[in-house]
């Protein structure tokens, strides 16, 4: 009997997460149709979706697997520039935006998956904080590598120059008539046709939720949770630690690549500097404040914390101050047991009848 309750409980929690996302999508779509969103808000819709996917996927590495990754933006960057190159070079071959978008997202995901696999191969064997160090370096390296790339496309196909001396320009690509540059070194991707849509953003969030939630509730997911809880015990019952960590990490980077591809295709110019260490930390902040291992928390934290600075733009200089205060308050109230106890003491006293519900 109790067993039945438990299954329903975790399943219900998952369904609530799906429902919240679907409801939010419907409400925002109607608000948008009704003209209730201003230009600035409309511009935020796709990036928010991307950052939600980033937060959920990083939560898989940090919250569920229990390994710190400081270079999640690096995988986003891989996805973004792969997506842009694929989309721009297929622009004549596949005029349909939707099909091209799907192919670009898939390509971004695959490249990020390969990146994740190559990073994981040496690092996930080790115990300790090596993943944090290596992913941190990876994020920086990827940024520099893309800053050196000059990529163009013409009737003959792709032209790529790796401009590590900094003396090459787009002219060196020798593009044929009608060809165009896609990535111009440090300028980043320029002249991208923006094909990302809010609906696409919603769909990738749903895909991410589906993959991550189903993974956690499966045999492999339980193995990953077991490794986080007690690695020695997990090995003693025959769980292959390296393999299951690798599966979780590659899923995480794949989803980040997909989010990156959508993000890249949302702007007609984007440079690799956008995906720097600060972006990785920003996503990590979403995950930590949303609660480690808490998927719905990641979604809410990503949405609120990404939109907050924009909403506060009217307050000019004070907005970062308020943003910082909000961060600190959330952090303290959720993580410090003493302060949380204090808050709980103050709040339930006002309405003692509901006191039982507030934890």
């Amino acid at each position: 009997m109790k067993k039945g309750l438990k299954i329903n409980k975790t399943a219900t929690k998952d369904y609530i997460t799906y429902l919240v996302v679907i409801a939010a999508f419907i409400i925002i779509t109607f608000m948008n149709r009704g003209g209730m969103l201003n230009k600035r808000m409309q511009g935020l819709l796709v990036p928010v979706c991307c950052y939600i996917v980033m937060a959920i996927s990083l939560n898989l590495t940090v919250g569920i697997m229990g390994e710190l990754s400081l270079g999640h933006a690096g995988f986003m960057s891989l996805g973004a520039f792969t997506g842009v190159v694929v989309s721009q070079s297929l622009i004549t071959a596949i005029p349909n935006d939707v099909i091209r978008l799907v192919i670009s997202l898939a390509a971004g995901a695959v490249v990020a998956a390969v990146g994740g696999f190559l990073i994981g191969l040496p690092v996930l064997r080790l115990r300790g904080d090596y993943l944090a160090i290596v992913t941190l370096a990876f994020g920086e390296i990827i940024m520099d590598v893309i800053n050196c790339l000059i990529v163009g496309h013409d009737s003959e196909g792709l032209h790529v120059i790796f401009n590590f001396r900094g003396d090459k320009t787009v002219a060196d690509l020798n593009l044929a008539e009608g060809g165009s540059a896609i990535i111009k070194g440090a300028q980043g991707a320029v002249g991208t046709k923006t094909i990302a849509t809010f609906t696409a953003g919603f769909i990738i969030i749903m895909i991410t939720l589906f993959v991550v939630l189903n993974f956690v509730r499966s045999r492999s997911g339980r193995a990953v949770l077991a490794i986080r809880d007690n690695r020695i015990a997990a090995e003693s019952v025959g769980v292959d630690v390296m393999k299951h960590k690798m599966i979780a990490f590659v899923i995480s980077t794949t989803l980040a690549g997909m989010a990156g591809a959508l993000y890249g295709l949302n702007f007609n110019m984007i440079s690799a500097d956008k995906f720097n260490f600060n972006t990785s930390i920003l996503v990590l902040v979403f995950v930590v404040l949303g609660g480690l291992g808490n998927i719905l928390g990641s979604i809410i934290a990503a949405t609120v914390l990404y939109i907050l600075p924009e909403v506060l733009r009217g307050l000019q200089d004070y907005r970062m101050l308020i943003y910082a205060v909000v961060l600190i308050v959330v952090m303290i109230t959720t993580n410090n047991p003493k302060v949380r106890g204090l808050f709980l003491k103050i709040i339930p006293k006002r309405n003692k009848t509901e006191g039982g519900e507030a934890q």
Partner: protein
Amino acid sequence: MKEFQKGKMVPMPSTALIPERDLGKIPVLECIHVGIEFGGLKAVEDFNFTIGKTEIAGLIGPNGAGKTTVFNLLTRVYTPTHGTIMIDGQDTKGKTTVQLSKMGVARTFQNIRLFSDMTVEDNVRVGLHNRMKYTTASGILRLPSYWKKEKESHERAMELLSIFDMQDMAGLKAGNLPYGAQRRLEIVRALATEPKLLLLDEPAAGMNPNETGELMENIVKIRDEFQIAVLLIEHDMKLVMGICEGICVLNFGKIIAKGTAEEIQSNPEVIKAYLGNNSMEG
């Protein structure tokens, strides 16, 4: 308890490897001159020990004698620097902990190592990891094999939990269980891997006499039902002398005595190891 004692106690000559009666077949565990050195310190030395297919054996000795080190050698947490360990007739040379688990060695830990943030049932299901398999892809896509295996593993987990009457606790967080229940859950999790040899590291630690009595019955019951060998480390002499058919005494990494309960109890070496020279004289 007494019922078990009648049928199950098998007397053995003290000189024999344990057990005498199984030496004709392939023993489930065979340690031949096993030893390990940590930078010159010989933690375990010349460890020779054999356990038959359905044996309950005990490993005792004073603190620091190297008992848990033996378990760590048997499960390849440590790699032995000397000797050979055979499991069910197969050499374990070069094998990993995970491979040892697949070969049929399961263990519990002295300081309980549960997956404390997971539910009781999920703890057991992790134990079923290599017995109820489906691919990660079918898990994510929830293909029919996922539903089939999940249902099977749920049923199997409940069945295993019922050994210790723990079905009602299935949905609870493992870390919130009372101490005794956590110890029992560790045994259930180990059994889920379908072992041939079950290693119990101080299963009765922290249990009251009633719980210990129950545990003794259950260990014998497990052996009878699953037809497996059990090797246990325990300080509770009532438990060791009550159910172990063969006992091995370890002191400073060396075996000082092997034999049945009566033989061990009267062995002067063992008494010396436990009580020391002075207390004997005084």
